[in-house]
């Protein structure tokens, strides 16, 4: 079967270069490829082109650093049900569910045909949050526990339905969509590049830098080549965000098991990191830092020195927290052997990012599809753990914080600030082309896809947050665990609601 083969550094792809295949061939090929660990889907979506519904697939080949793009189409009057790939490879489920929800495409023998996020332009207006088809099990000794959609504390809405036998969870179903804002459509409803950048920053508040970098990467592939030093500064920002979030999660995991020392230490350290980001760009979460084709906040000598000092200090103090956690029996008793997701399961559901790495699956865009400073200044070695329990997911964080600090320090040690390019919100985009921004945020693989029309405006914008894949991982992790261990499992994944709901 034909693919257009590219990589993560190449320019945008002309739409006419993307091969169009028959669904039968597409189905047979994916059936084969997805059984192999080296392939996974970055994005699979549909859009209307004239009278046709055109499906695009972006497949990643981890071994050869390739990005493979192909497509197929359906005529308006075709109403043949397509055989479902989800039935064979559960990792396809969010994509097929989205396509079914938006375009009423039927997937034959789709095992989990449920609404994904209840968008405003969904085909079936009768499908609402209130009649979400929850899975049920009948039984004398079973009971259902519903948590949410409104939660205690300051977290986003999402409904969790547990089926329990006493304290043990038999099944957890997660119903999302409460945060749906129509972000993807907002990107196409304006041609104002600044506004689009701001939208990208607010896709998920905890990944502002990652999502905005993915957006500007997609835009820059469609327009101009940028200075490599700008890429280095963005890499520093990404790693700072990774440090801040991983430290925050370490603290939150300690809070959830009532371990006060770890909690207060991590809260203090996270503050140092986000304040560093603020001193650099004026916002603690890095909003305003990433802009297309240039930056308003270039690094200066003083800022570099400030970042080096703070990161060195945090690295030393976090290392102490790490030693403390790893040598504390009461903590280990809570985290080890809790919420197991074996490697086979995480591959099956297409898990990405740190959750996948905690289960032994080496899914890391930084090494599999290097971009920016990765593969050039930094030769990235992924942190991979094998057990797939809460402790492994914490251990990945513990190691990645130190690794991120080392990356920042080594990048900045030899860096001569020289970026002078200012943001360019007016640059012309290549018409009729598809480009993608693909990078490893702190949570995992983020993929943005932009398709331009004849005038060079973005006509379709698709976003994929790693949470889309990993929510199912959480549901699997808590099976046969005590229901009281759900919170630490949830925190160990720390998935985004609005990143999923868009």
């Amino acid at each position: 079967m034909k693919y257009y083969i590219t990589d993560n550094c190449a320019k945008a792809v002309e739409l006419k270069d993307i091969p169009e295949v028959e669904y039968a061939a597409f189905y047979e090929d994916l059936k084969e490829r997805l059984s192999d660990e080296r392939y996974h889907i970055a994005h699979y979506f549909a859009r209307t082109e004239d009278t046709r519904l055109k499906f695009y697939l972006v497949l990643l080949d981890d071994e050869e650093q390739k990005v493979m793009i192909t497509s197929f189409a359906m005529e308006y009057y075709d109403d043949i049900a397509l055989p479902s790939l989800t039935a064979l490879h559960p990792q396809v489920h969010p994509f097929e569910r989205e396509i079914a929800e938006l375009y009423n495409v039927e997937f034959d023998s789709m095992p989990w045909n449920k609404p994904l996020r209840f968008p405003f332009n969904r085909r079936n207006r009768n499908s609402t949050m209130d009649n979400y088809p929850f899975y049920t099990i009948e039984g004398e000794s079973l009971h259902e526990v519903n948590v949410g959609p409104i939660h205690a504390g300051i977290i986003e809405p999402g409904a969790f339905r547990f089926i329990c036998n006493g304290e043990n969870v038999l099944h957890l179903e997660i119903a999302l969509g409460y945060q749906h804002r129509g972000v993807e459509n907002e990107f196409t409803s304006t041609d104002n590049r600044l506004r689009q950048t701001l939208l990208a920053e607010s896709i998920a508040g905890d990944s502002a830098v990652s999502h905005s970098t993915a957006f500007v990467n997609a835009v820059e592939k469609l327009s101009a080549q940028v200075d490599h030093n700008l890429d280095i500064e963005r890499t520093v920002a990404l790693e700072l965000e990774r440090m801040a979030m991983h430290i925050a999660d370490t603290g939150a995991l300690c809070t959830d098991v009532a371990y006060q020392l770890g909690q207060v230490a991590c809260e203090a350290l996270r503050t140092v990191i986000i304040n560093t980001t603020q001193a650099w760009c004026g916002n603690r979460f890095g909003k305003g830092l990433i802009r297309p084709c240039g930056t308003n906040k270039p690094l200066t000598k003083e800022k570099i020195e400030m970042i080096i000092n703070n990161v060195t200090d945090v690295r030393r103090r976090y290392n102490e927290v790490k030693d403390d956690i790893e040598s504390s029996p009461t903590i280990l008793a809570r985290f080890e052997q809790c919420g197991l997701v074996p490697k086979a399961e995480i591959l099956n559901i297409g898990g990405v990012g740190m959750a996948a790495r905690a289960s032994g699956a080496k899914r890391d865009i930084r090494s599999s599809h290097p971009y920016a400073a990765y593969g050039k200044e930094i030769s990235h070695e992924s942190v991979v753990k094998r057990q797939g329990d809460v402790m492994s997911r914490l251990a990945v964080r513990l190691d990645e914080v130190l690794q991120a600090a080392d990356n920042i320090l080594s990048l900045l040690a030899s860096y001569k600030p020289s970026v002078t390019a200012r943001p360019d919100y007016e640059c012309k985009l290549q018409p009729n082309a598809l480009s993608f921004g693909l990078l490893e945020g702190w949570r995992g693989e983020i993929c943005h896809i932009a398709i331009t029309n004849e005038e060079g405006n973005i006509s379709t914008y698709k976003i994929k947050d790693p949470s889309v894949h990993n929510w199912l991982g959480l549901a699997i992790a808590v099976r046969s665990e005590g229901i009281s261990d759900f919170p630490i499992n949830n925190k160990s994944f720390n998935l985004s609601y609005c990143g999923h709901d868009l």
Partner: protein
Amino acid sequence: MGIVLNTLLIILTAISIPGVINRTRATLAGRKGMPFSQHLLNVNVLLRKGAVYSTTTTALFRIAPAIYLGAAIVAALMMPVADLYPLISFKGDVICFAYTLALARVAIILAAMDTGSSFEGMGAAREALYGALIEPALMIGFATLALFCGYTSFADIFAHEQSFDMHLTIVMLLVAFLFVKITFVESGRVPVDDPRTHLELTMIHEVMCLDYSGIDMGMIHIAGWLKTACFSMIAANAVAATCCFHWWFAVPLAILLTGLSVGIVESTQARNKLANNTTFIVTISALAALIFFIGYLLKLNINI
């Protein structure tokens, strides 16, 4: 006069322990922390507020906090402070004490079930299980005291003889240790429960009170303090009986023993996995049985 002083001292202990816990935690965390009397201010606010009731609840839900607080007050009135006499004291009041508190527990469990919430039902189930498991420890602890001293009233047990002999010292210190552990369980502290968590699925005591607000919540808080003070005072009395049997020794001891130990444990330890709580509590009962056995051997004057 002694009775009034005794009652006032129990109240003082009850309101000081949460303050000491909070200050210990703040100090160990390197934080400025809340003021010593913050819990009093919080409850003061709660007591001045009206309560909101879920429409699915019945009268049972509304009277439960009153029963809970009432039982805790009665239990507290039975508790002597070292050489002082409590207001209520009669033969066998140790049994009455235990089951007055059990009544409080039943009231709050039934109220939690009354709300019909799946969380509160889970919390009630956990509370009932742990209540049942800790009861043997409590009764064997009392039995050890009764066996060794030959009385069944708190006031008599602790006041009966001040001979400071070795056998008495051993048993009393062991009993004190036992009751400190029981205090952790009964007042819902780490490692058994976490009073600070916001995660309903992990709560035990807090989840049963989720539907309470205002004055009801205030009453439940006060009852909790009294309960903690009672158990803490038993431990302090046991220690005081071995060296310095005066109220001015027993009161600071009761406050510091629980305040510091809870504060330190909560700062440096994670809480148990819920399934391991059962083991933890059964171990306390086993410890109680062991102490009873040691007490029995010493009573028989076997030299060890």
